[in-house]
C-alpha cells in the first residue's frame, strides 16, 4: 500500500483518549428524547451511545455506533457535526455543545485498540446483490445487506476502495489507515470488493440483474470536475480538483509535491473541495496559495471551521474576484489567471448575494499551478451505464426518497450520484435505506 509521508503533510490530529471521552460524556445531559439523535442524518444515535459510555457500557456504546453506521469512525472524523448532531445539543443551553463527533471517533478507535468485534458473519440467505462503487454509500449498503446474509459484491473502478474518502479527502483530515480499519470490518462481514472493476459498458449496470444479482445498488458518486472552460485541455500546471486530490493519494504524490514546493498556486472555488485543495497545497510547501472566489467570505459554501483553518494554514483568500480566463504560454504551460474584480449585488429574496463584475477591473494573477475546484458532477456518459434509469439534466439519478429505488425495478441508487454533492453521513444513510428496501423486495419475491 502506498503511504505518503511528509513533515508538512501530517497525519490526522489525535482524537480523544478514554479519559477525555469519559470527561466529555460527563457533560452530556442524557436528554429524554435526545435531540442529537434526531439530528443525525444516518441515525447513528449519539444520545444512546453517549449514555452507554456514561454508564460504563463501553462495548454497548461501540455496538450502537457500528450497528447504526458502519462508517461511524469516518463520520466521527469527517462530519460537520457543528451543524448536525451537535447543533441540537441541549448542553448548549448551559454552555457549549458536547463534542459528539469526537466521542464517536474515540469509541470506534477504542474498539480497534481492544479488539472488540461487533459483528459476526451472518448465515447466508442465498441472495446475491451487486453494488457499483465502493464509496461511503456503496460500503454502507453492502454492509447492511451482508449483515442480513446477502452475498454482496462491490464493483469498484479504482485500484482501491473508499471513493472520496480514499481519493478525495486529504490525509491530514482522514487517514487511509483509519479507512482500512473500517474496510476490514466490512470485508469481515463477507462483502467482496472487486477493485479495478469498472461497470462502464453500455447497459452494464442494468445487465448485472441478468447475471444472477437479485438487485443492484448504484453509488458511483461525482467524479467529473466542472470546468471554467472545457475547451482548454493539456495545459501543464492546470488541473481539476479531482485530478489534484487523487494525486495526493497515489504514486503521483512525490512528483506533485516537488512541483508544489515554492510555487504559486491558485485554487478556483469556495466550497469544501476548494479548501481541501488550497490547504493541502499550502501544507505541501507552496510559497503562495490563492483561493480565488467571486463572492465574499460569508457566502463561501465551505464550512466555517474549514475556512478558518485554511486561513491559519496560510492560504490567501482572494475574494470578490471572478476568473475569466487562463493565461497560458506557448509551451502550453499555465502562467496565471485573468481575473476581474466583483462587487455583491443586493440579495434577491432568500438567495445569496450575486457577484457583479466591475468593468475595467481586469488583472492577472501569476500562478505556476491552477486548480479548478468549482464543483463535481456525474461523469459524462454515465447514463449509458444504466440507459433505462431516469436521470435529471445534471445526470443525477432519480431515486425514491423512501426506498432509493430508481425507475428500473431492482436497481437502486444513493449517495452523491443521487443527491449531488452531499456528505459521507448522507451517503451512509442512503446505503441503509436502499438495503432495507432491497431486503424487503427480496423477501416479497420469496413470498
Amino acid at each position: 500500500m502506498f503511504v505518503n509521508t511528509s513533515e508538512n503533510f501530517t497525519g490526522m490530529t489525535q482524537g480523544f483518549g478514554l479519559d477525555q471521552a469519559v470527561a466529555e460524556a460527563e457533560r452530556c445531559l442524557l436528554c429524554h428524547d435526545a435531540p442529537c439523535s434526531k439530528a443525525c442524518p444516518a441515525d447513528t444515535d449519539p444520545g444512546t451511545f453517549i449514555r452507554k459510555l456514561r454508564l460504563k457500557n463501553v462495548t454497548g456504546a461501540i455496538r450502537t455506533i457500528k450497528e447504526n453506521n458502519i462508517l461511524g469512525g469516518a463520520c466521527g472524523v469527517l462530519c460537520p457535526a457543528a451543524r448536525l448532531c451537535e447543533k441540537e445539543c441541549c448542553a448548549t443551553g448551559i454552555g457549549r455543545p458536547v463534542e459528539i463527533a469526537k466521542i464517536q471517533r474515540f469509541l470506534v478507535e477504542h474498539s480497534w485498540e481492544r479488539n472488540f468485534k461487533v459483528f459476526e458473519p451472518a448465515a447466508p440467505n442465498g441472495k446475491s446483490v451487486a453494488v457499483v462503487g465502493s464509496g461511503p454509500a456503496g460500503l454502507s449498503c453492502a454492509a447492511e445487506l451482508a449483515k442480513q446474509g446477502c452475498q454482496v459484491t462491490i464493483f469498484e473502478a479504482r485500484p482501491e476502495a473508499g471513493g472520496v474518502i480514499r481519493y478525495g479527502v486529504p490525509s491530514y483530515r482522514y487517514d487511509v489507515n483509519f479507512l482500512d480499519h473500517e474496510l476490514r470490518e466490512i470485508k469481515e462481514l463477507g462483502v467482496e470488493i472487486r477493485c479495478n472493476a469498472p461497470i462502464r459498458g453500455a447497459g452494464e449496470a442494468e445487465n448485472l440483474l441478468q447475471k444472477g444479482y437479485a438487485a443492484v445498488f448504484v453509488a458511483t458518486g461525482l467524479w467529473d470536475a466542472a470546468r471554467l472552460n472545457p475547451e482548454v485541455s493539456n495545459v501543464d500546471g492546470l488541473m481539476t480538483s479531482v485530478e489534484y486530490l487523487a494525486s495526493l493519494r497515489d504514486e503521483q504524490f512525490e512528483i506533485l509535491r516537488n512541483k508544489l514546493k515554492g510555487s504559486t498556486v491558485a485554487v478556483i472555488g469556495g466550497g469544501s473541495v476548494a479548501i481541501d485543495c488550497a490547504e493541502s497545497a499550502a501544507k505541501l510547501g507552496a510559497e503562495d496559495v490563492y483561493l480565488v472566489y467571486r463572492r465574499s467570505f460569508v457566502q463561501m459554501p465551505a464550512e466555517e471551521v474549514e475556512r478558518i483553518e485554511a486561513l491559519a494554514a496560510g492560504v490567501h483568500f482572494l475574494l470578490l474576484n471572478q476568473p475569466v480566463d487562463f493565461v497560458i504560454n506557448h509551451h502550453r504551460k499555465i502562467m496565471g489567471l485573468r481575473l476581474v474584480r466583483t462587487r455583491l449585488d443586493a440579495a434577491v429574496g432568500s438567495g445569496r448575494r450575486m457577484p457583479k463584475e466591475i468593468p475595467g477591473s481586469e488583472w492577472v494573477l501569476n500562478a505556476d499551478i491552477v486548480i479548478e475546484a468549482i464543483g463535481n458532477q456525474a461523469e459524462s456518459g454515465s447514463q449509458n451505464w444504466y440507459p433505462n434509469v431516469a436521470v435529471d439534466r445534471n445526470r443525477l439519478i432519480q431515486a425514491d426518497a423512501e426506498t432509493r429505488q430508481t425507475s428500473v425495478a431492482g436497481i437502486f441508487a444513493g449517495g452523491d450520484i443521487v443527491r449531488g454533492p452531499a456528505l459521507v453521513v448522507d451517503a451512509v444513510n442512503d446505503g441503509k435505506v436502499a438495503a432495507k428496501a432491497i431486503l424487503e423486495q427480496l423477501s416479497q419475491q420469496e413470498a
Partner: protein
Amino acid sequence: MAGKKVDLSVDFCVIKFENPFLLSSSPVSNSAEMVAKAFEAGWSGVAYKTLNSDRVRIVHPSPRMNPYHYGSKRLVGLQNVEQISDRSLKDNLLDFLYLKKNYPDKIIISSIMGFSNEEWAYLAKASEDNGADMLELNFSCPHMTIEGSGHKVGQANHLIEKFTETVKKAVSIPVLAKMTPNITDMTEPALFAKQGGADAIAAINTVRGISQIGLDDWTARPKVAGIGAISGTSGPAVKPIGLRFIADLAKCEQLGLPLSGQGGIETWIDALEYLLLGSTTVQVTTGIIHYGYRIVEEMIEGLSDYMVERDIERVADLIGKALPTLQDTDKFDLESQGVASYDLDRCVGCGQCLIVCNDSAGQALEWDSQLRRPRLIEDKCLSCMVCSFVCPVSGLISYKPQPSDWQRRETAVMGEQLEAELKLAAFK
C-alpha cells in the same frame, strides 16, 4: 461476539429471575404504573415500595430528599426522609394483581413493615394472597416518624427473630429480611433473622447521615418546615459500606443464606462487584432516581459482554468469586514491597503528584522546574500511590513490585542534633 449468548438468569430462593437486576423498595417502585415501565425496560423484578396496613395514615415530609453533589458531579449521594408507602393497602394490592397478570414472568417482592406480630402476619398474608412471589421484611428504614418501626427493629435482634418467625408461619413464599447498616456487625441480626426462618438477606438500607447544612439558616437538608434531621443516605457514596456488609454476610459460614445486595449501584460494574462479593440479586433505587429505569439496559448489555469476553456462561459462576482473596488484614504478606513507577512520556506537567507526595506521603519526589516533570527518589517512595490517585493521566503512575532485598530509606529525622534534649525512656 454478537452471536454468543450468555444466560443472565439467576435462581434466588428457588425462584428464577431473568436477570439479577431488581428495583429496590422506594419511590421507584411506588405503583404498578411505574413498575410496569421498569419491567418493560428490562428489570427482572421489584421489591415493591414498603406496604403499610392503613392502621396509621402515612404522610411524606415535604420536601423529602436532598441531593449530595460533588463538584460538577450530581447525586453522588442522596438524602431522604421518605416514609413507607402512603398509598392504601388495597390500591397497592390491586397493583400487584395488575402486575402479575401483565408480567407473569417478572418477580414481585412485597416489602412490608408492621408494628406488631399481628400486623406483620396480616401484611404478609395479604401480599401472598394477591400475587407476591416473595416477601421482604423492612427492618431497616432509618427515619420512620412512628415509634417501634424500621431500623429500631433492625437494631433489636429479638424483634427481628420474632417478626420473621411470625411471617414465616403466616405464608409459604420465601422471605427476605432487609437489614439496616446503622450497626457495627450485621451478621448478628442476620443470624437472628435466620433463626426466625428468613430465606435470604437484603442489605443495605440507607445509611444514617447528613448531606448538607444550609449556611444561611443553619439547618440540615432536607429542611421540612424549618426542621432538619439525620436521615437516610443512599447512592454511590454508600457503595463501599454496602459492599462491606454484603461481604461480611457472605463470609459468615454460619449464616449461609443467599443475598440481595444494594447501595450505590448505577452500572453493571457496581452490580458485578456486589455479585463477586456474594449477592445473587442486586437492587437499585438512587441510580434510577438519577438516570431512570433505562440504566438496566446498560447493566444487561455490559454484564453480558463482560461474560462473553471471559467465556463465563452463567451469572452463578460469578457469585462470590471475590470472596476467597478477601481476608483479614493480618493475612497480608508485609515482605512484599513496591514503589510507584512513572511513565513520564505521557506526563502533562501539572505537579499534583509532587504536592500530595510532599504533603501526605514520602517526600519522594523532586521537581524539575525547567522541564516541569517530577523525578522519583525510589527508596523514599512509600508505595502509598496517592500520587496516582490525583494524576490526571490514567495509568501514567503504576505500582511496581520491588525485589525482596530492596530497602526503603528511613524517614528523615529533623531533630537529630537535639538528642541531648530528648526525654525518653524505653517502654518495658
